[in-house]
């Protein structure tokens, strides 16, 4: 019976072919470690956010006089409203944690390198979309941090020469963040996740075209690949289980870990809280913004902090394949970069006083230095490694490449 139904569908829609192509016969390298779990994990969090978001939207009111109260209504009166809201609020942080680990893995193993440029770019686009959704969503509770965060970030556009002021008013629909801003942020916050879902499909199509990279950085012969299902479905699901244990520990036992106390005070446009901080996932970029002592350049620097990553596939000029596996300097610099991101995060969380200013500036220089020096460092590292003698698998790969090139 089931076979007949599947047969009926297959004549009209290639369901079996799709499952075969994307899962049961989709070839994956057999040596992926657990750092490769975070892509599918990000997908799980996206679904979690969309589902909880839809249910929250059934009770939330996007009106400056009602928004704060409606959140309290969700927390206190709606059945399990507290659970759904805490999942959504914690989910935002979880989303970034997962995405940042996913990106770090890409950097560590050089997964962004050709032929995966488009995969890398769609990933960065996804990061920007998620940031946009998170920023707009953060306004909705209409607390003090919501309000002043939106006020400050929309003001960034005021740095644009000539038309900046007009753009700020256009974004807000008001001269300050107000009711029109809240309503449009809600509309866009509901829309963007579906755009993200679409972009995820593009990301996956690109992935399934070029296939996953692997820790060695060397291509895997087709005969050695293994099917995605059941090997990586079982591995990914185990990862989801571990993730859910950590995630639910936050949701049920420390749900306020990611909610600033000030955001439990209704927005007051007449009074800025003494110490405004963005959510942790924006801190490194916020630190870059503050470290550059010029409004326009600061905004440009912050934007470049993400956009410049798109150039990495072309900046990395080493012929040694992959990332850290066979490249000790590349690996060392990766850890410098990650440590630097944490330093920037720490600086971003503290008032720009005393040593914080200098530390922030040094960290900003290191952040961009990592990227800008990549072409030189990668070339120099390659020649140094060649002088020392390459490991056999790498030499074999390079010889094959050279032979293929002369054909």
């Amino acid at each position, binding site marked *: 019976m089931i076979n007949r139904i599947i047969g009926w569908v297959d004549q009209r829609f290639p369901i079996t072919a799709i499952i075969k192509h994307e899962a*049961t*016969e989709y*070839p994956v390298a057999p040596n992926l470690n657990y750092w490769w779990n975070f892509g599918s994990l990000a997908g799980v969090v996206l679904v979690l956010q969309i*589902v909880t978001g839809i*249910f929250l939207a*059934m*009770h939330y009111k996007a009106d400056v006089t009602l928004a704060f109260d409606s959140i309290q*209504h969700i927390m*206190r*009166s*709606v*059945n*399990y*409203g507290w*659970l*759904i809201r805490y999942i959504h609020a914690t989910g935002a942080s979880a989303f970034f944690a997962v995405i940042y680990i996913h990106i770090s893995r890409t950097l560590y193993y050089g997964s962004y390198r050709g032929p995966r440029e488009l995969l890398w770019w769609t990933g960065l686009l996804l990061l920007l979309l998620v940031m946009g959704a998170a920023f707009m969503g953060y306004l909705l509770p209409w607390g003090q941090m919501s309000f002043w965060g939106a006020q400050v970030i929309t003001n960034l556009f005021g740095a644009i020469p000539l038309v900046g002021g007009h753009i700020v008013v256009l974004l807000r629909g008001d001269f300050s963040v107000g009711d029109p801003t809240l309503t449009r942020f809600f509309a866009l916050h509901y829309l963007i996740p579906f755009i993200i879902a679409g972009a995820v499909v593009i990301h996956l199509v690109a992935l399934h075209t070029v296939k996953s990279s692997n820790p060695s950085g060397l291509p895997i012969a*087709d*005969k*050695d*690949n*293994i*099917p995605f*299902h*059941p090997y990586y479905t079982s591995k990914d699901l185990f990862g989801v289980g571990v993730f859910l244990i950590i995630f639910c520990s936050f949701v049920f036992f420390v749900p306020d870990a990611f909610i600033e106390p000030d955001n439990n005070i209704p927005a007051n446009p007449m009074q800025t809280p003494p110490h405004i901080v963005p959510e942790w996932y924006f801190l490194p970029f916020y630190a870059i913004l503050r470290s550059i002592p010029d409004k326009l350049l600061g905004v440009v620097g912050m934007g470049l902090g993400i956009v410049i990553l798109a150039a990495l596939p072309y900046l990395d000029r080493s012929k040694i394949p992959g990332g850290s596996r066979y490249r000790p300097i590349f690996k060392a610099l990766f850890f410098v970069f990650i440590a630097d991101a944490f330093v920037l995060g720490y600086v971003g969380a503290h008032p720009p006083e005393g040593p914080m200013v200098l530390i922030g500036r040094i960290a900003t220089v290191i952040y961009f230095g990592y990227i800008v020096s990549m072409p030189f460092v990668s070339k120099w590292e390659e020649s140094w490694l060649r002088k020392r003698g390459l490991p056999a698998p790498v030499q074999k790969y390079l010889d094959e490449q050279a032979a293929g090139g002369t054909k």
Partner: protein
Amino acid sequence: MSDSKSLDSPDRRNFLEMATGAVGAAGVAAAAWPFVQSMNPSSDVLAKGITEADLAPIPLGESHTVAWQGKPVFIVHRKPEVAAAMQASPGGKDPEPDQKRAKKPEWLVVVGVCTHLGCVPSRTEEGWLCPCHGSVYDNSGRIIQGPAPANLEVPLYHFVGNDKIVIGEA
């Protein structure tokens, strides 16, 4: 690529996988519960499930309408002869003695929502007439003619003293 068929034939699905699948499915079903529940009335809506109505201002022979859970409730102060006539009549196609519908013969309390498709019937001398599809109810709220299948609903209510009722709890 390694041959997937020999490695993963359906008959090698074992007890462990079935059990894991069952535990996982149970978890997903349980996780759906809070979401479904969140769509049910919230505690502040439920708190509004009770309406107190003062009977003193309703003159003999008149009907007042109060809101209960967002629905109209008709409170009729019936004249003795009307009440007696109702007690004598068995009702129409959904027969029910008036004694079971009215806690006190002079007071009839019914939900003013036609049992056909939910319109609010309008008051007539003989009872009610639904403006939508012409269902006719008598002075006990019982269906006499028209498409409505059942009598007007009697809500849960109880008397507090002689001239006050609480609708929504027995």
